[in-house]
């Protein structure tokens, strides 16, 4: 994985400022995939990953209470690696295991990642399939947000998502194990503000992605749709619906 030795600096010098446009679509050829981005993503995500560890501990505690063994909880964190869906799954856990409900809910909670992944296409379109798909398997809300922030600010380090995903994955699996072992002696992670980190990352990201007045209409559509859908529908359907509604409005508006 990531043995590509082409450095970001070399690629930057071969294809420098073709346009003055700062939009997410500007000169995507410059996106590279190397150690530089991998390391930058890993280091940038470490503080966030430690915070996410608070949720990993919470998941471990819940998994333990649901009757999963240490090995089973750790396996789920290693392979599923999608926090909200894992926490919901162990909350649904019962004897006998409601398999269909758990698997369907997991998909519903995680289907937002389809749109989040598709949103990276403007930057990723010239990376190889193995680079794209290995990065996306380690995609979570936090490192997607950090990577969007990185790429939207003009960086072309395509391995940033993978590097930040590795940092998150290590903390997620490690903290799951801690949580199972700690059992019920752990308090509420909300008292340390850990639960606010994700919202803070997204506010910062919104500031970064603001692109002037043209952004206003799709964002208002996304806001209204998601708030209405969150009240009307179960799970996290409001996220794909909000994004989808904004994209549809933009498609209709285009050239119009």
């Amino acid at each position, binding site marked *: 994985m990531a043995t590509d030795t082409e450095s970001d600096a070399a690629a930057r010098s071969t294809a420098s400022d073709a346009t003055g446009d700062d939009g997410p679509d500007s000169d995507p050829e410059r996106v590279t995939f190397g150690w530089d981005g991998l390391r930058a993503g890993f280091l940038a995500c470490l503080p966030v990953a430690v915070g996410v560890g608070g949720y990993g501990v919470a998941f471990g505690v819940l998994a333990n209470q649901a009757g999963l063994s240490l090995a089973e909880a750790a396996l789920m964190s290693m*392979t599923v690696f999608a926090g909200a869906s894992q926490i919901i799954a162990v909350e649904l856990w019962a004897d006998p295991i409601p398999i269909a409900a758990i698997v369907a809910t997991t998909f519903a909670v995680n289907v937002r990642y389809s749109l989040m992944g598709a949103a990276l296409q*403007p930057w990723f379109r010239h990376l190889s399939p193995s680079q794209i798909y290995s990065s996306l398997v380690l995609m979570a809300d936090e490192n997607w947000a950090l990577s969007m922030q990185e790429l939207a600010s003009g960086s072309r380090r395509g391995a940033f998502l993978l590097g930040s995903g590795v940092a998150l994955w290590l903390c997620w699996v490690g903290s799951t194990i801690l949580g199972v072992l700690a059992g019920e002696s752990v308090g509420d992670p909300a008292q340390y*503000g850990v639960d606010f*980190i994700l*919202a803070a990352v*997204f506010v910062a990201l919104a500031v970064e992605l603001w692109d002037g007045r043209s952004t206003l209409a799709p964002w208002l559509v*996304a806001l209204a749709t998601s708030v209405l859908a969150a009240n009307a529908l179960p799970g996290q359907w409001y996220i794909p*619906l909000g994004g989808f509604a904004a994209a549809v409005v933009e498609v209709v508006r*285009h050239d119009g």
Partner: protein
Amino acid sequence: MADVLSLEPLVVGVILAMTVVTVIAKVGGIWLVRHVEVSDRLQAGLDVLPGAIVIAVLGPELAAGGPAEWGAAALVLVVMWRTESIVLALVTGVVAVVSLRTLL
């Protein structure tokens, strides 16, 4: 508690099924846009996705919060806008939300 190293076949099966649908969710979207011809019009729609999804995550989350979360979010916005430092913005947000929750 179950033996720490026990891996029940049924439990492992459910975990693997969860893994499969999660991987499909994670890679499915970009797979589609890479394999389907994308017109300029569709591209315009895809370009607004990043911001729209950020807003869709944030909207209901903040709507479900209270004055402490709103105040902290406003501080993150101002710090990010002024300094463009994500670390500074995050630290401000977490400190602010903890302080506001105790004060309010």
